[in-house]
C-alpha cells in the first residue's frame, strides 16, 4: 500500500464522515428554504 493511497483513504474517510454528518442533520447545499425562484419565472424563457 503506497503512501499516496493511504492519504487518499484518509481523504475518503473525511469526506464520508462529513457527508454522513450532513445527512444526519439534514443539511444540504441544495435545499430551497427561503430561496425565491429568480431563474426564469418572471423573465420568461431564456431561449434566444
Amino acid at each position, binding site marked *: 500500500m503506497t*503512501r499516496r493511497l493511504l492519504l487518499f483513504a484518509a481523504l475518503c474517510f473525511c469526506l464520508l464522515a462529513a457527508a454522513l454528518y450532513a*445527512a444526519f442533520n439534514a443539511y444540504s447545499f441544495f*435545499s430551497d*428554504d*427561503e430561496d425565491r425562484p429568480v431563474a426564469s*419565472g418572471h423573465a420568461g*424563457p431564456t431561449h434566444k
Partner: protein
Amino acid sequence: MTGGKAITCPACGGTIEVRAAGFSVNLVCQNCGSILDVSRPEVVLIRRHERARTRFAIEIGKRGTLFGQEWEVVGALRRKDQIAIWQEFLLFNPYLGYRWLVAADGEWQFGTPLADRPQGDRNRVFWRSDSFSRLGRDQTFSTTAVAGEFYWRVKAGDTATATLFQSGETFLSREISEGEENWTQLVPVEQSDIEQSFGLDRRRLPKRKAPSGLMQFKAEPGLEQDDLGRMFLLAFAAAILAAIAMAVLAGPSTRTSTMVQVPVGGQIAPIKVGTITVRRPWQFVTVNADTNQFENRWVDLEYNLVDRSSEQSIDAYGLVEHYAGSDSDGPWTEGSHHGDTMFGHVPQGTYDVYVSGSAHGWPVDPLPNDAWGQVETINVWVEAETGTMSWGMWWTLVIALFAWPVTILWWRHRDK
C-alpha cells in the same frame, strides 16, 4: 571474467582498473572523479575533477549472478527528473555484452538493450509480436552523478528524453539523446535477488522525494507501484457506502398530497395539502409539484410547513414553467411540467403543509376570461414527503471522491 587492465589517472596519478577493456569508451576515475577517454591506447583527460567519488547502492566491480548469468557492475549513474531520483547500474559480461539494473523507490528492473527496434506510432509499439501501450508522457531527465566506465561518452549534466511503453509487467523504454535513439526492455527483479547477488548498501538506495507521495501524477518509469486502480475502487466503495448510509439516515417516510387549481393571471390563497410528521431529530422534507400540460405559462408556488406545537412556519418556494416556440433554428421548448422543492434541517415535529401560488402567461397574462367566459386554470398536484435524501449532496460527494484519481488519470493521458 573480464579483460581488465590497469591505467594511471592523468589527473590524480591514481591507479584505475578498466574492467571492460576494449569495450569501454568513457571512464570515471574512482579516486578523483575525473572523466577519462579510454578508447585509445593513451588515456586522455576529458574533464578534471577533484572530489570524492559518488557512492552508489552497489559498488563498482561487484560481481553477481542474475537470470543464470554472471555479471560485473562496471558503471553507475544517478539520474533524476521532476519527480524522482533513481540509480542505474551498467552490467557487463564479455560473452553477453551489457545489461542494466535500475533502482527506484525500492523496486528494481533488469534492462536489456534492444538491437531490433520496436515498430509503431506515438501511443503503441510492437516488439516481437507483443503490443506495448504508451505509459504517461515524455519525460526529460538529467544525469547527476557518474561512476565507473561506459561504452559511450557520459557525464553529469547530460539530459535525455524517455518514453515508456507497457505490456503487463514488461516495459520498453525509449531514450533519445542528441538525436540518438536507444530502446531497452525492462523486467522486474526482486530486491532480495539483487541483494543476494551483488550486496546492497541500503543507505545509498535512492529515496523518494517528499512531494512525490502526494503529487505523483506521472507513473514512475515502470518502477512505481501503480495504485490508481485501487484509488478508483476505494472512491467507488465510499460512494456506495455513502448512498446506503444517507438513505438510512434520511429516516422514516410520511407523505400527503392534494390537487390545486391555479388561475392563469390570478392567484390562490393558502390551501392545506395535509399533515406530515418528522420523526427523526432532523429530516429533509421535499415537495413535488406536477401540472397538466401547458405552454408558455409559469406557476409560482409558495409552501409553508407550520409546526403544530409552536405555530412556527418554515417557508420555501417552487416554480413550474414550460415554454415552446419556433425561431430560425426550428421549434424549441424549455422548462418542465414538474418542480421539486426541498426543505433542509427540518426539526422533529408534526407539520401542516400549505401551498399558495399564482400562474402567469408569457409574454403577457391572457385575458381573465376567454370567449366562453371560462377562466384558464392550471392543475397542480402537490405531494409533500419526509424521509427523502439529498441526491445533490450525494453527487457532490461523488465528485469530491473521484476528483483526485480522475485528475491523475487525466494528467497521465492529457497529451494523447
